[in-house]
Every structure is written in structure tokens, then in C-alpha cells.
């Protein structure tokens, strides 16, 4: 008989129900205590950065969605803002508003999916179905808007592809009234559940110092007490025109990461409602301008206002050549800062596209958090970090 080693090496993944995708964790266990942990990534590497080099900007725009399939609008926005700032294209205000509304709704849908899967990791099955039920309503709205449920390909350089369908905004408003009630329901079943508290309070504490050191951004960083929200400051797009709070928590444990996302969803609903209220040109059915896309960019056009345009100017899809230059865009995505660094050499194809994705850092910090904790806690910690694997591997 072989003698039992004191430490056991266990290989979690690449196929494992707890890793939310294709991630491999090499864990050294002593009993149930994690002594060492090494994440192995790259199973979903699709070469998104390399693919950009052989495609035109417009061809690549359809691929951008796939960087993170749960928050497509943010990836699109990230790429569009970068290219727009190279090509010096101004985005009309109406288009910016449409982007903000869709992005914030996307943030809610992404957080809802996270909430369900996080609770599933902890062993509670029902919340998954509740959150999917509500996410379904959002996806239905996106489908009506962009024709797709996950990969929207809805933004284009200089604006968005089309206006809201008739009555769409009313549906959004109705949903925005429903959702806070449903969030209260989640809170009723989850927030004060003693077992949930036991499993999450004080578990996986991410201190401010470690979080900054590892480049953690987004809700995970804000849960550690750092008030970093790019929407508020410096404020890209038209976010400066809305009033909303930057949600922060101090402890940085799994419980705070849960609370902060619930708060963020409420803030997002606020932003969406404000944006609908302020939407330049009004709702589509009450649009004052007869021809919203007359093609000019003057502020006081006879036919249209720059405010109410959807795209700044018609861009030749085949021959779109931004000038030589480079730009970085920083977007506050649901998981943190998504940044797209585009280098253009004046040809049809981007010279280099570099994606900075928040989940990459979130996986990297995992050994720091999980070492010394129990194996069961690993799933709570990993779930609370909200990692989307395609985004890690790109």
C-alpha cells in the first residue's frame, strides 16, 4: 500500500461546475485547507487581438462583442470610443444617451447573472431561476432593440446603429419600476439568511492594499473601500449629466461584494430613468425632428439638431480609415475597467488592438485570497469576484 501523502494535489477544472467556464486551478489541499493555488488560464484564448490585424475596423466591430459575452455593450463602447478618439469623430448627444441607457441595462443584466451563479456556488438553487427570470426580460428588450440577445453589435463609430423601436422606452420604464421590487425580494431571501451570512461575512477579505496592487477595479475594488468609478470621475460619455452615487463598502469580503452589486443595480436603474427623462429629441414616438439622420453635424441645422442625431456622419463601411494615431479608452464595465488600446497606422485595418479586461486581474488575485481558507470557501470567493472566463483569455 502506498502511504498517504499529507498534502493532496487536486485539479479543479478545466471542466468543473464551480469554475464558471474553462479555468483550471491546481490546488494543494491539506485536509480541506488550501495550502497553494495556481490558476491556469488560456483555454478560451481566441486571439481576439491578433484577429484585429487582418480585419477592417467594421469587420472587427462584430468580434468585439465576444470579448465578454455578458457585457457586450461595454466592449463595443470601449472599442468605439477608442476608434472615435483616433478618428476624431464626435458622437451626437442622442447617441450617447442611447449608449448610456443600453450600457446601464446591460450592467443590470450582467449583475443579475452574477447574483444567480454566486448563490448557486454557495448551494442555493432558487435565486438562479429568479435572476434568470428577470434577466430574461432585459434580454427580451435587447433583442427587440438590436436583434440579438447576447452579442448585440449595436454601436458603430460615431453613434449607434438605430433608434429605439416605438414603445421600447415605455417598456424600459415599466421594467425599471418592477426591478427594485424584485431586488427587495432577493434581499429578503438572501441578505439576512444566516447561512449566507456565515458563508460570506469575513470570507475572502480583499484589503485595499492588495486590491490596488493587483489592479483590481470595479465593484471588487469599491467593496474594499476605494472610491473609483470612472463614470463619476473623470466621467466619460454623458455620465456627468446624471446624479448617482458611487457605492462603496469598507470590508472587502464576499458579503460586501454582494451588497455593492445590488446597490449598483439600483443606481443603474436610477441612471436609466434619468437618461430617458433627459433624452435629447424626446422618445421616438414624440420625436420633433422629421428627419433625424440628415447627415450634417451643425448644432442648429434646419432639419435636425446635432443633439438628436444617431450617428455623426455616414461612414463608408468599406473604406473607413482613421488617421495615424493611438488612443486608449477606459470604460467602467460591470466587472471593472475595460480598456481598449488601439493603434492605427492609417490603413483600413487596426495596427494593434490591446484589450485590458478586469477579469484578468480578478483571476490573478485568487491565490492571494484563497490561500489558507477552506476548499468550500474557494467557491464563495471565486464566485464573488465575478470572473467571466472568455474575458480572461480573450
Amino acid at each position, binding site marked *: 500500500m502506498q502511504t498517504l501523502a499529507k498534502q*493532496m494535489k*487536486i*485539479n479543479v477544472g478545466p471542466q*468543473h*461546475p*464551480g469554475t464558471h467556464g474553462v479555468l483550471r486551478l491546481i490546488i494543494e*489541499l491539506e485536509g*480541506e485547507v488550501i495550502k497553494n493555488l495556481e490558476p491556469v488560464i488560456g483555454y478560451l484564448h481566441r486571439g481576439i487581438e491578433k484577429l484585429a490585424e487582418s480585419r477592417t475596423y467594421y469587420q472587427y466591430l462584430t468580434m468585439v462583442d465576444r470579448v465578454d459575452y455578458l457585457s457586450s455593450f461595454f466592449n463595443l463602447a470601449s472599442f468605439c470610443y477608442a476608434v472615435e478618439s483616433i478618428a476624431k469623430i464626435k458622437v451626437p448627444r442622442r447617441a450617447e444617451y442611447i449608449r448610456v441607457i443600453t450600457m446601464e441595462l446591460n450592467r443590470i443584466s450582467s449583475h443579475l447573472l452574477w447574483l444567480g451563479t454566486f*448563490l*448557486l*456556488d*454557495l*448551494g*442555493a*438553487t*432558487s435565486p*438562479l*431561476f*429568479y435572476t434568470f*427570470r428577470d434577466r430574461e426580460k432585459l434580454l427580451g428588450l435587447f433583442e427587440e432593440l438590436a436583434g440579438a440577445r447576447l452579442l448585440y453589435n449595436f454601436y458603430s463609430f460615431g453613434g449607434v446603429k438605430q433608434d429605439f423601436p416605438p414603445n421600447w422606452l415605455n417598456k424600459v420604464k415599466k421594467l425599471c419600476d418592477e426591478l427594485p421590487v424584485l431586488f427587495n425580494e432577493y434581499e429578503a*431571501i438572501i441578505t439576512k*439568511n444566516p*447561512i*449566507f451570512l*456565515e*458563508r460570506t461575512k469575513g470570507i475572502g477579505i480583499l484589503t485595499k492594499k492588495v486590491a490596488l496592487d493587483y489592479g483590481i477595479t470595479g465593484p471588487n475594488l469599491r467593496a474594499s473601500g476605494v472610491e473609483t468609478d470612472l463614470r463619476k470621475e473623470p466621467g466619460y460619455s454623458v455620465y456627468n449629466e446624471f446624479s448617482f452615487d458611487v457605492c462603496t463598502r469598507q470590508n472587502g469580503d464576499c458579503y460586501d461584494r454582494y451588497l455593492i452589486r445590488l446597490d449598483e443595480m439600483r443606481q443603474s436603474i436610477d441612471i436609466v430613468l434619468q437618461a430617458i427623462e433627459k433624452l435629447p429629441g424626446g422618445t421616438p414616438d414624440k420625436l420633433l425632428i422629421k428627419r433625424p439622420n440628415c447627415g450634417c453635424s451643425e448644432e442648429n441645422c434646419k432639419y435636425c439638431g446635432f443633439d438628436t442625431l444617431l450617428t455623426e456622419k455616414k461612414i463608408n463601411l468599406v473604406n473607413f480609415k482613421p488617421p495615424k494615431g493611438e488612443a486608449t479608452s477606459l470604460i467602467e464595465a460591470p466587472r471593472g475597467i475595460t480598456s481598449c488600446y488601439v493603434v492605427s497606422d492609417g490603413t483600413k485595418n487596426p495596427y494593434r488592438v490591446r484589450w485590458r479586461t478586469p477579469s484578468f486581474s480578478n483571476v490573478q488575485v485568487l491565490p492571494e485570497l484563497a490561500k489558507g481558507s*477552506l*476548499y*468550500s*470557501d*474557494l*467557491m464563495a470567493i471565486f464566485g464573488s469576484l465575478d470572473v467571466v472566463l472568455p474575458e480572461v483569455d480573450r
Partner: protein
Amino acid sequence: MYELYIKIFEHLSIPTVFAQISWPMFLFIGIAATLVIVVIFLVLLERKLLALFTVRKGPNRVGPNGFFQTFADAIKLLFKEDIMATNTNKILFTIAPIVFFAPVMVVYGLVPFSENLLAINAAAGLFLILAITSISTIGIVLSGWASNNKYSLLGGIRGVAQAISYEIPLVLAAVGICVLAESMNLPTIVQWQSGGIVNNIFLNWNIFSWNMWPAALGLVVFFICSLAEINRIPFDLPEAESELVSGYNTEYSGMKFALFFLAEYAALFIICVLISVLFFGGYLSPFNDYLCLLIFKNFITNKIILNLLVNIEQIAWLMLKTYFIIFVIMWIRATLPRLRTDQLMNFSWKFLLPLSLLNLFIVAIYRFLFPL
């Protein structure tokens, strides 16, 4: 029925000893076979209930309203290839599901489903049941070890640790019942719970003399511990799917997996029967008399038919209580997340064990103040 059976033997001039021996066997096989079917529908019930809790429809394709879904699943499982990984310990791997399944089935023979429907009337039935169910744990650790899979091994270890630490409060809670009834014989325990508190028009209902009143703490402890014994959420650590894939039965497929699956639901059913026998008066009606007696007493005079009717009603009462407890357990499954290993142990040793001792104390005082 038993008399009838013996009469057949006498009629055929076979020694009645054989009848006395073979009767429990037949009864047991009958009960077990029927209950396996019941258990199969338990799976359907669970899926339907979970669907109800989570705003879904549940299985609705096979048969009317998905009625035969579990049969389809069972048939699929039986026809599946029985995969055994290369380095498994083949003998133990095969034995494990049997060791897990058999004790649960034996318990079916020891529980009184009605006054007469009891295969084996053991003098220390409760003790025997508690002893036999512990064997199931060996099945878990065997399967965990023999699978040669680290998830299974972790699941097996967790299963044993959990079963051992929850057995103690469970047994102590059961001891409280023995103190109340001054017996370990299950029919005696049931009979003791009849009669009400005082002979009054209303207070003589059986419901007031059920063990759940004096042993309320014991009920809580017993219920929680039995959840842990049958590995249900929030104590489903041995097969925590987000951590251990499927725990001790990760490597199993086909019939062996079906056996594990069946045993789990059979255990769920029998533990609920046991809870209703120990705390909710078993097959007793909650009123002072059986309903069928009240209705048919005047115009059915045949003792045998009346007895049969009473037995059927007793089974119905027991099932009603059992399914109520099953419903609660499934409700819990839809509500709660899973505990962690150390929290599970803490909960057992630091909370349930003192509580069960307190229960024993209360029950003893109760028995001292109101002797039998």
C-alpha cells in the same frame, strides 16, 4: 391478514412455524417493492415542487404532466453503460452502492406503517433502526475510496465526518422519545401517543398527546440531524456540486448510480416516516378516533372489513404526515445555501448536542412529573 395466512398453512397441513417465519418476509418484500415505486414518484414530486418554488413548469413531456418522467430517467439509467475507471478498486466499487442501499431498505421492514402493516416487530426497533442506518455511511466512504478520484475521496471523508457528528444528537433526540414511551418498540411508541391530555370533549384528541409537545426541542434536533444524515441541503456537503462535482458518486454511472440515487430518496422517505412515527403520532389520527370508525361503525359490522378500513386510514394518516415533512425538506432545499465543513461541525457539536441534552433533561422531568 396474518390469521388468514396462518389458516392457509393449517389448511394445507404445513407446520405453522414456516408461516410465522415467511410472513414477515412476504410483508417486507411487499412493503419494499411498493415503496420503491413511491420513491420513484418522490423524485418527480421533488422536481415538480422545485419547479413550483422557482417559477418554472418542471418536467412536462413524458406522460400526462410529466408523470412518467422518472420512469424514463430510470430506464435511461438502467440502459446506460456501466463505466468503471481503470484504477478503481473494482470489488469495493461494486459493493459500495449495495452497502449504501441495503440498510435503507432493511429499515422499511422495521417501521410500522399501520397497526398490522409491520413486517418485523422488533422489541428494540428504534435502536435497531439507528444502528442499521449507520451502515450507510460505510457505503459513502467505500465509494469515495474505491473511485480513486480525489473529489470522491473528499466527498467520502466529508460524508463520514458529517454522519459521525450528527449521529450523536440524533440518537440523543431519539433517547428522549424512549424516555417518554419507556420503550424502544416502535408500535408501543406510537400507541403511547394516543389518548390526548385529559378525557375531555376536545382535549382527548390524539394530537395533544403526540411527542412533538413534550419533546419539541428533540423534534428540532432530530429533524436537523436527519437532514444531515440523508445529505440534504443545507448539509449536502458530501455531494456539493459546485465544489466536489458530485462528491462520492462522481465516478458512478448506469445502474450503480441509479442505486445511489434511489437509496438517497428511499432514505429521505424512510426518515420522514420515522419522524412522523416518533413525533407526530405515526399512524394515529389526530382526532380521538379514526374517521372511518365514526362513519361506518353503525352499518358495517364485519370486524375484518372494519379492521381493513382502519388500517387503510392509518396508512393514509401516516402518508399525510410523511409527505408534509417531505414537503418541508424540499422547501428547505429551495431556500437555503450550503454550509461549510467547519460550520457544519460547529453547529453539530456546539449547538445541537447541548440542545439534545437539554431536550433529554426536559423530557425526563416531564416523565417524572407525569409518570405513565
